[in-house]
C-alpha cells in the first residue's frame, strides 16, 4: 500500500509494463496474461486508498522534462486527496470491468490486444489523475483519448466502428486543441506549467485573461466529457465492446473533464463569467440529452445519452460553485452507471442484440443481472435510500441556490431521467421475452463484478460526510424541500414509464407515429450529428481537394514548373539566331561591336 502510495511513478509505470507484457504474451498466454490486466487497476485503487487512509498527500515527483537555456517545463506526479478519490474510482470500476471482460470477451480472438489496451488505459488515466503539472495532465489526457480511439475501433472490421473511433478521437481532439491554447496562454502569463505554481498565480492574472484561460480549459473538458456541442462522439462510441463503454464512456474518461475543472478550481473561481458558461452548458446538455434518451431503442444509446445528461448535472453543479457536490455525484454516477453498462453488457451477451424491442422478461431468466440493473436504475433516477438520491439532491440544491431557473430545468431533467430509466427497465426485464435467442445468466466472472458494483451504488450515499471532508468541503445536510420535490418528480417519471409499458410493446412502435416529427428530431439528437457531418466534415474534404488541385498543383507548382518552361522558351528563341549564314553572324558581330563601343563611350564620357 505505502509502496504504491509512496511513489506515484510506479502506479503509472506498472500498467504500461503490464500492457507490454500482455501484448508480448500474445494469444498463447492470453488466458494467463488477461488476469494481469486486473493487477493494474487494483494497484491504482490501493494507491488511492493508501493516501485516503493516511490522508497525507505524497510529495510531487517532479522532473525538468523540457529545459533549455534557463526556462524549464516541469512534469511530475503527485497524489492528494482529490487524486486519491479519482484513483479509487478508476481502480474499482476498472477492476470490475476487466473481470467482466474476461467473461464477455471469452470467445474473441484479439484478446491480448484488448487487455493490453485496457491496462494501457488504466495507466494513462492514473497519469492524468495524478499529474502535478499541466504537461503530464495533457499527456495523460491525450493518451486516454488514444486508448479510447483504439478500443472503440477494437472490432475494426466493422466500418461503423472504425468511423466511430475516428469521430471520437477527432471531436475530443478539438477540445484538446482548445486546452492546448489554454496551456499556452497560461505558459505565457505565468511562465510555468506546474499546477501548484499556476494555481498560486491564478488570482494575480488579469480578469479578462483568466476568463479566457478558464473557457479554453472548459472547452477541453467539454470535449472529453461529451458536453454539448462536442457530445456527438459518445453515442457513436457505443460501437466499442460494452465493458469498454462501461469503463471509459461511463465512469473514467468522461469524468476527466469534471476532474480537470475541479483540479483547476482556483482558476475557475476567479472567472465568474466562465462559471456561468459552465452552468449554462451543463444545464442545456443535461436537459437536451435526457429528452433524446427517452426515445432511443438501443439499450446502450439510452445509457450513453444518460451519461451525457448526468455529466451535464455535474457541470451544472460546478457552474454553481459546488465542487464537492459535483465530485460526489461523479463518484456515485461512476458506480451505478458502470453497473448499468455492465448489466446491459450481460444482457447483450445473452440475447445477442442491443434493440430493446427484441428483449423482455429477462428478470426471471437473468435474476442477478435483473436485480443489479434495478439497483442501478433506482440510483440513477434518484429514488430514495440509494446513492443517486443523495448526490443528485446535493447537485440540484446547489444549482437551485445559484440559479433557480437552472434548478427547475434540472428537476425536469431528473423527471425525464426517471422516465427513460424505467422505460428501458420495463421493456427489457418485465413482460414476456420477445427475442429469438435463449438468454441465460453469464458465469460468475460476469455476475461477480455486477454485485461488486451494486454495493457502492447502494452504500455510497451514506458516506457523503467523510467524502466531503476528504475533499476539504463541509458536508451540508440534506435539504428536505429539494429532496421531497426530486423524489416526487422521480416517482412521476416511473409511473409514466409504467403507463407506457402497460400499453404493450407495440407502444414502442407507435411512439414514432404518435410523437410524429418531434420523434424524428429527438431520435436524431436534434440533428446535431447530421449537421456536423454535412456542414463541417464534407466541406473539409472538398476544400482540401480544391486546395490541392488548384493552389498546390496549378499555382505553386505551376510557378516552379513555369520558370523551367520560361527558360526553355528563351533557349528556343536564342537558337533562332543560329541560322547558319555566315553573313548573319558577321552582321551580329558588327552590331555587337557598335553597341558595346557606344556603351563604352557613353560610360567613359
Amino acid at each position, binding site marked *: 500500500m505505502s509502496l504504491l502510495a509512496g511513489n506515484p511513478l510506479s502506479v503509472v509505470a506498472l500498467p504500461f509494463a503490464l500492457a507490454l507484457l500482455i501484448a508480448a504474451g500474445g494469444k498463447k498466454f492470453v488466458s494467463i496474461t488477461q488476469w494481469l490486466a486486473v493487477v493494474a487497476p487494483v494497484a491504482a485503487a490501493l494507491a488511492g486508498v493508501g493516501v485516503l487512509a493516511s490522508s497525507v498527500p505524497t510529495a510531487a515527483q517532479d522532473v525538468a522534462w523540457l529545459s533549455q537555456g534557463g526556462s524549464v517545463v516541469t512534469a511530475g506526479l503527485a497524489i492528494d486527496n482529490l487524486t486519491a478519490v479519482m484513483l479509487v474510482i478508476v481502480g474499482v470500476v476498472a477492476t470490475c470491468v476487466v473481470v467482466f471482460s474476461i467473461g464477455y470477451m471469452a470467445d474473441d480472438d484479439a484478446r491480448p490486444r484488448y487487455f493490453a489496451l485496457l491496462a494501457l488505459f488504466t495507466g494513462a488515466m492514473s497519469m492524468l489523475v495524478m499529474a502535478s503539472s499541466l504537461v503530464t495532465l495533457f499527456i495523460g489526457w491525450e493518451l486516454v483519448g488514444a486508448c479510447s480511439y483504439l478500443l472503440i475501433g477494437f472490432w475494426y472490421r466493422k466500418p461503423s466502428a472504425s468511423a466511430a473511433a475516428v469521430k471520437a478521437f477527432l471531436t475530443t481532439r478539438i477540445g484538446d486543441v482548445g486546452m492546448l491554447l489554454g496551456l499556452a496562454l497560461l505558459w505565457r502569463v505565468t511562465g510555468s506549467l506546474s499546477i501548484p505554481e499556476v494555481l498560486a498565480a491564478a488570482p494575480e492574472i488579469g480578469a479578462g485573461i483568466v476568463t479566457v484561460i478558464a473557457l479554453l480549459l472548459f472547452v477541453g473538458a467539454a470535449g472529453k466529457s461529451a458536453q454539448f456541442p462536442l457530445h456527438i462522439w459518445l453515442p457513436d462510441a457505443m460501437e466499442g465492446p460494452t465493458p469498454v463503454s462501461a469503463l471509459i464512456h461511463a465512469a473514467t474518461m468522461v469524468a476527466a473533464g469534471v476532474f480537470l475543472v475541479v483540479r483547476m478550481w482556483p482558476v475557475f473561481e476567479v472567472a465568474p463569467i466562465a462559471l456561468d458558461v459552465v452552468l449554462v452548458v451543463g444545464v442545456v446538455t443535461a436537459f437536451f440529452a435526457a429528452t433524446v434518451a427517452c426515445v432511443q431503442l438501443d439499450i446502450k444509446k439510452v445509457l450513453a445519452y444518460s451519461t451525457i445528461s448526468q455529466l451535464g448535472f455535474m457541470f451544472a453543479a460546478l457552474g454553481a460553485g459546488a465542487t464537492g457536490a459535483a465530485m460526489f455525484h461523479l463518484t456515485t454516477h461512476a458506480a451505478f452507471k458502470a453497473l448499468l453498462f455492465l448489466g446491459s453488457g450481460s444482457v447483450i451477451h445473452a440475447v445477442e442484440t442491443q434493440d430493446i424491442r427484441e428483449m423482455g422478461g429477462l428478470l426471471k431468466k437473468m435474476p442477478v443481472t435483473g436485480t443489479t440493473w434495478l439497483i442501478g436504475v433506482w440510483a440513477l433516477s434518484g429514488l430514495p435510500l440509494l446513492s443517486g438520491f443523495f448526490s443528485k439532491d446535493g447537485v440540484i440544491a446547489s444549482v437551485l441556490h445559484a440559479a433557480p431557473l437552472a434548478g427547475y430545468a434540472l428537476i425536469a431533467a431528473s423527471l425525464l431521467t426517471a422516465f427513460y430509466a424505467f422505460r428501458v427497465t420495463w421493456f427489457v426485464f418485465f413482460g414476456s421475452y420477445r427475442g429469438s435467442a435463449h438468454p441465460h445468466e453469464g458465469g460468475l466472472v460476469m455476475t461477480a463484478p455486477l454485485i461488486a458494483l451494486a454495493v457502492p451504488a447502494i452504500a455510497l450515499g451514506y458516506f457523503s460526510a467523510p467524502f466531503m471532508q476528504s475533499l476539504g468541503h463541509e458536508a451540508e445536510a440534506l435539504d428536505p424541500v429539494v429532496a421531497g420535490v426530486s423524489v416526487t418528480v422521480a416517482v412521476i417519471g416511473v409511473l409514466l414509464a409504467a403507463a407506457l409499458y402497460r400499453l404493450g410493446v407495440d407502444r414502442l412502435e407507435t411512439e414514432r407515429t404518435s410523437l410524429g416529427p418531434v420523434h424524428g428530431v429527438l431520435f436524431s439528437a436534434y440533428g446535431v450529428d447530421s449537421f456536423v457531418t454535412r456542414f463541417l466534415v464534407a466541406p473539409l474534404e472538398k476544400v482540401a481537394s480544391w486546395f490541392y488541385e488548384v493552389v498546390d498543383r496549378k499555382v505553386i507548382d505551376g510557378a516552379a514548373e513555369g520558370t523551367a518552361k520560361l527558360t526553355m522558351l528563351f533557349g528556343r528563341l536564342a537558337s533562332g539566331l543560329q541560322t*547558319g*549564314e*555566315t*553573313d548573319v553572324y558577321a552582321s551580329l558581330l558588327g552590331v555587337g561591336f557598335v553597341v558595346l563601343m557606344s556603351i563604352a563611350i557613353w560610360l567613359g564620357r
Partner: protein
Amino acid sequence: MSALVLCAAVFGLGLYVVLTRRELIAVLAGAELMLGAANVQLVSFASMSGVPGESAQALALMVLVVAAAEVGVGMAIIVTLSRRSARSRTDDLQEVNG
C-alpha cells in the same frame, strides 16, 4: 586626322563586301580590304603619337604576314570545296549552324 576617316571608311566598305558578297573569293577580298585599312590606320597612328618607326613597322609586318597566311589558307579551302562539290556560295554552306 584625314587618314583616320579614310581607313575607317574603307574598313566599313570591306565589312560591307563581306556581308553582301556571296562568293567566298569576294568575301576574302573584303577581308583583305579590312586588313589593309587596319594596317594603314595602325601606321598613321604610330606616326601621330610619336612612337618610334621600327616598332610600328614590326607590327604592321606581323599583320601583313598573318593576312598573307590567311589568304593562302582561304584559297586552299575554296579550291577543295569547289572541287569536291562545286559550291562556293556562302548560302549553300549551312553546316556551320550545327
